[in-house]
């Protein structure tokens, strides 16, 4: 079977994301990458834990963080994780337009999350004078949370690019692995966020 063959319900394999050799390689390679990402974020978490008391007489975690916004951000990101599961569900059922719709909802929720984060940073910098340079705590905080925000931005660009690029192509065995892997990346972003809201925000204000 040519990997470029357009799928229809009769020829749809059970796991379209791993039906071709290229798909299998992408799948494995991407999980390798996620193993590495785990370590990369761990080094940022470790740095944050080591430096979060070094406030240089500036505001500390307890004075800065408000839990309401973090709760909203968590709900947005968690829901976007579910909507991308829905997108993959429709991919497996070979309904391209529904997959696109759910990916679109995922992107909107992701944009909402990013908007909240930008608002939060803006508030810290201009309202509280808490910047990347104000203390070791500031450097560690913005590096860790900002790096996660960078991942969110990259994930959004990735998903939007895939949606636009394949809008007229429809679903086939060539692009199914691409969509699947982008959704894995999106879930991983939520995995990292679970530790950020636990370790940085919740444990910060206790």
């Amino acid at each position, binding site marked *: 079977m040519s990997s470029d063959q357009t799928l229809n319900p009769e020829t749809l394999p059970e796991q379209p994301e791993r039906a071709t050799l290229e798909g299998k390689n992408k799948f494995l390679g991407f999980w390798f990458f996620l193993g590495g990402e785990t*370590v990369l*974020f761990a080094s940022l978490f470790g740095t944050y834990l080591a430096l979060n008391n070094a406030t240089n007489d500036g505001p500390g975690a307890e004075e800065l963080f408000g839990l309401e916004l973090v709760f909203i951000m968590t709900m947005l990101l968690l829901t976007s994780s579910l909507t991308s599961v829905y997108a993959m*569900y429709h991919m497996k*059922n070979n309904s391209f337009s529904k997959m696109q719709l759910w990916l679109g909802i995922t992107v909107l929720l992701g944009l909402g999350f990013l908007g909240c984060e930008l608002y939060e940073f803006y508030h810290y910098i201009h309202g509280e004078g808490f910047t990347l340079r104000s203390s070791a705590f500031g450097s560690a905080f913005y590096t860790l949370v900002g790096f996660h925000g960078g991942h969110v931005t990259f994930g959004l660009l990735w998903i939007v690019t895939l949606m636009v690029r394949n809008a007229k192509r429809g679903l086939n065995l060539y692009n199914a692995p691409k969509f699947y892997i982008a959704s894995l990346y999106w*879930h991983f972003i939520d995995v990292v966020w679970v530790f950020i*809201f636990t370790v940085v925000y*919740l444990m910060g204000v206790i």
Partner: protein
Amino acid sequence: MAENTNLQEQYRKKKNKEEMKQQVITFVLMILFTVIAFGMVIYELDKLFVIPTLLILAVVQVGFQLYYFMHMSHKGHEMPALMLYAGAFVAFLTVLTLSVLIWW
């Protein structure tokens, strides 16, 4: 023959639907864990109890994310599991090292 593939197709769609139901249950549980985590901090329960509980809730939630949302419970995920657990192990060592460095 055509009828046979049609039946297979129906079976697969039904299976996918059941899996999706599980995913929604997983999602509800994750929301619940998050609400409990925030609630414990807002109601200022004892610190010695809250911190370990928060970490356990986070680990369980991440497990749900990995095994259900990212399909690690499916067949053919031995290498992904190896990679991720190797990564998590090195991640643990990294956090431990950086914390111990500033212990004294």
